[in-house]
């Protein structure tokens, strides 16, 4: 999805470059008038030069041509003035008496009236044609923009980015400043903006949200404001309004009329609203799915914990009842063994409780599960190994060997969690290794540190690696041995919380045995410059 979003964003940037700055379709009034004066003067000059060849009807046709060109090329003012000037010039230079605006013959009157009428008619028709062409072009452009907007928004999944993309597009296309605002009871929060900032009246925003329709510039409601507000999203917690202020010098931008511009704005806002609704629906569906998964996970978790607790509880109860019911005939040695078993099982239960607490912490949704700090893997390994050596795990003497490079870089991890990861892996290795031999090795692999824990037990079943993603998996030996379900799940969760990778595999040296590897990336090392002298 991220690649897709990036592609859309780049496409949007390319598009916005292609659009370029907005242009002014109609020249100023002065320019229009100047064009019409010059064109009439030019046609008069040409007619005078070729009067003998053209005769009067040809001259009239030339003046018609001038009016048409002015109407088509310059606009309403140019065509109107051109029609008047053409009639005046024709009268002055070509109708008897010449060089005078007087008209002698009735026939000449009729010619002048016809010229004026036809000039006005042609001017009007040409202008209508021009307007129709502009409207059609605008509508085509509007459809194209709506399609572009939808296409850009489809690839995005962050609400803020979607709003900013829409603001950029509308600002460029409509020619003005855009702000997307979210009104709150006491303040107004700006979600996106493009163009010159402008102040928006808080009451107008609230009115727009309350009534769900546009208000401001060019609308029936509060039309005197220099900007128009359009509702985009209405749910109370995400309500937002898009405000558009046209450029003061560009009137309606490229739009043929104010109404056309407002219609386009409304259509684009509807597209934006639909895209936001779609994004919200996808998010809600994802959250619902996550909640369902959490629920399933919680149930599986509780079942797994109950199973893991039941086993030591059974041992404790058996040992305690044996001690109580037959105390008088038990030898001191036998009683000591039973008491030791109780102690071992209690420690096992304490470990399960630690794992449960860690699991709760790691799955806490509203806070970061990591308390990351600069840590030395050498220290953590030393701490865990010394604790494991202090006890005779399940009455099997442990042989733990370590290979840790002396120049190991620091890692940014949650030390106690990595320590717990190693505890779980060592417990598992000790449980499955008949000779109790465990090798701990730290090595670098590219830009990663890899922590390997290998034992000389029977190794993992080949199918187990693929089951890592399914939580609380326990081996097929549930009935006769303690499962590694909870412990493995904690290890996997710890690895994931560190953006690390957990691997279950065979030993690297090819011997029989299991290997659990944790791959961590090591970041840029902290500086040493302030460490030289104590204060």
């Amino acid at each position, binding site marked *: 999805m991220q690649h897709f979003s990036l592609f859309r964003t780049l496409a949007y940037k390319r598009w916005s470059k292609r659009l370029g700055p907005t242009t002014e379709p109609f020249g100023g009034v002065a320019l229009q008038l100047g064009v019409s004066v010059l064109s009439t003067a030019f046609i008069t000059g040409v007619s005078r030069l070729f009067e003998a060849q053209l005769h009067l009807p040809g001259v009239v046709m030339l003046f018609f041509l001038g009016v048409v060109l002015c109407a088509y090329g310059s606009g309403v003012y140019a065509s109107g003035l051109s029609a008047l000037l053409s009639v005046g010039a024709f009268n002055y230079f070509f109708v008897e008496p010449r060089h005078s605006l007087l008209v002698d013959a009735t026939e000449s009157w009729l010619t002048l009236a016809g010229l004026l009428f036809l000039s006005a008619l042609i001017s009007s028709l040409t202008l209508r044609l021009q307007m129709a062409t502009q409207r059609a072009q605008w509508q085509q452009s509007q459809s194209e923009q709506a399609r572009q907007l939808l296409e850009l928004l489809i690839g995005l999944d962050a609400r803020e980015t979607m709003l900013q993309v829409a603001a950029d597009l509308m600002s460029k296309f409509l020619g003005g400043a855009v702000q997307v605002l979210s009104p709150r009871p006491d303040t107004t929060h700006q979600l996106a903006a493009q163009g010159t900032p402008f102040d928006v009246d808080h009451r107008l925003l609230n009115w727009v949200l309350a009534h769900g329709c546009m208000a401001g510039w060019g609308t029936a409601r509060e039309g005197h404001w220099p900007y128009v507000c359009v509702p985009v999203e209405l749910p109370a917690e995400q309500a937002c309004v898009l405000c558009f202020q046209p450029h003061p010098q560009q009137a309606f931008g490229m739009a043929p009329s104010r109404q056309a511009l407002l219609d386009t704005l409304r259509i684009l806002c509807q597209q934006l609203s639909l895209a936001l609704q779609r994004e919200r629906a996808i998010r809600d569906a994802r959250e619902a799915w996550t909640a369902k998964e959490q629920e399933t996970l919680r149930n599986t978790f509780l079942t797994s914990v109950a199973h893991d607790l039941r086993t030591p509880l059974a041992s404790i109860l058996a040992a305690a009842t044996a001690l109580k019911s037959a105390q008088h005939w038990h030898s001191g040695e036998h009683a000591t063994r039973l008491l030791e078993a109780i*102690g071992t099982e*209690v*420690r096992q239960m*304490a470990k399960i409780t*630690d794992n449960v*607490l860690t699991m709760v912490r790691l799955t806490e949704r509203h806070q970061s599960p990591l*308390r990351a*700090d*600069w*840590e*030395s893997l*050498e*220290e*953590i*390994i*030393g*701490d*865990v*190994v*010394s604790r494991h050596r202090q006890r005779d795990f399940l009455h099997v003497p442990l042989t733990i060997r*370590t*290979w*840790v490079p*002396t120049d190991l870089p*620091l890692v940014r991890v*949650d*030390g*106690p969690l*990595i*320590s717990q990861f190693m505890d779980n892996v060592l417990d598992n290795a000790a449980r499955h290794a008949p000779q109790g031999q465990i090798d701990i090795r730290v090595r670098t692999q590219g830009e990663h540190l890899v922590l390997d824990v290998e034992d000389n037990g029977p190794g993992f079943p080949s199918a187990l690696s693929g089951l890592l993603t399914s939580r609380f998996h326990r081996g097929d030996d549930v009935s006769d041995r303690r499962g590694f379900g909870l412990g493995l799940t904690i290890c996997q969760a710890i690895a994931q919380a560190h953006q690390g990778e957990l691997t279950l595999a065979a030993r690297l040296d090819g011997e029989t045995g299991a290997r659990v590897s944790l791959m961590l990336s090591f970041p840029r090392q*902290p500086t*040493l410059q*302030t*460490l*030289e*002298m*104590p*204060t």
Partner: protein
Amino acid sequence: MSGLIYLTEDDPEMGNVVLSSLSREGFKVCWFQTGQATLDGLRQMQPDFCLLDLGLPDIDGLDLLRRIRVDFAGPILILSARGFETQKVKALDDGADDYLVKPFGMGELLARLRVLRRRQQGLQSARSEWTIDDLVIDLNRHSVERAGQPIHLTPIEFTLFATLIRAKGQLLTHRKLLQAVWGSDAVDQTHYLRIYMGKLRAKIERIPAEPTILLTETGVGYRVCGLT
């Protein structure tokens, strides 16, 4: 062992077991089930040790710890079911001398009490020469030797080592060590400690990855072990 112990524990089963076990070892134990009763007891008589549970019905455990520390200078050992490292660090920074997470064995509790007693007795003597296995450390002369061969430590490494030795086996939090060696401004720069403890371990320990002298309690702090 003997001495007066104030035990603050609201759970009757736990209180009974600790009371009877310590009494059998020769201690005189006063058992309080609330924080307020402990504070009242402290006003009447000063014990040799305080054993404090953090989950009490009337006063927050850490708050009680700070209030006890105002009037009581002796060793305080926390007995708590709260096992997260952040809680241990808070208690140790607020004046506790050691922290034992429930469940624990009585042997472990007695061992911790012995360490605290030795430390308490050592505080009264201003020794400068210490030995750890075959290491000889002279705090006045700033020297460390192993089997007669001098080990060169930089000023920071020696200050760090000396701070741990002066604590006589007590667990020192990262914060306390950073403050003692680099000053108050550096209390959050834990990487200083990681780097210098690594250097120190490489010089002091026989196998740095399997330390026997400079012990780490991950997420909490460091202690020195084997001081004689």
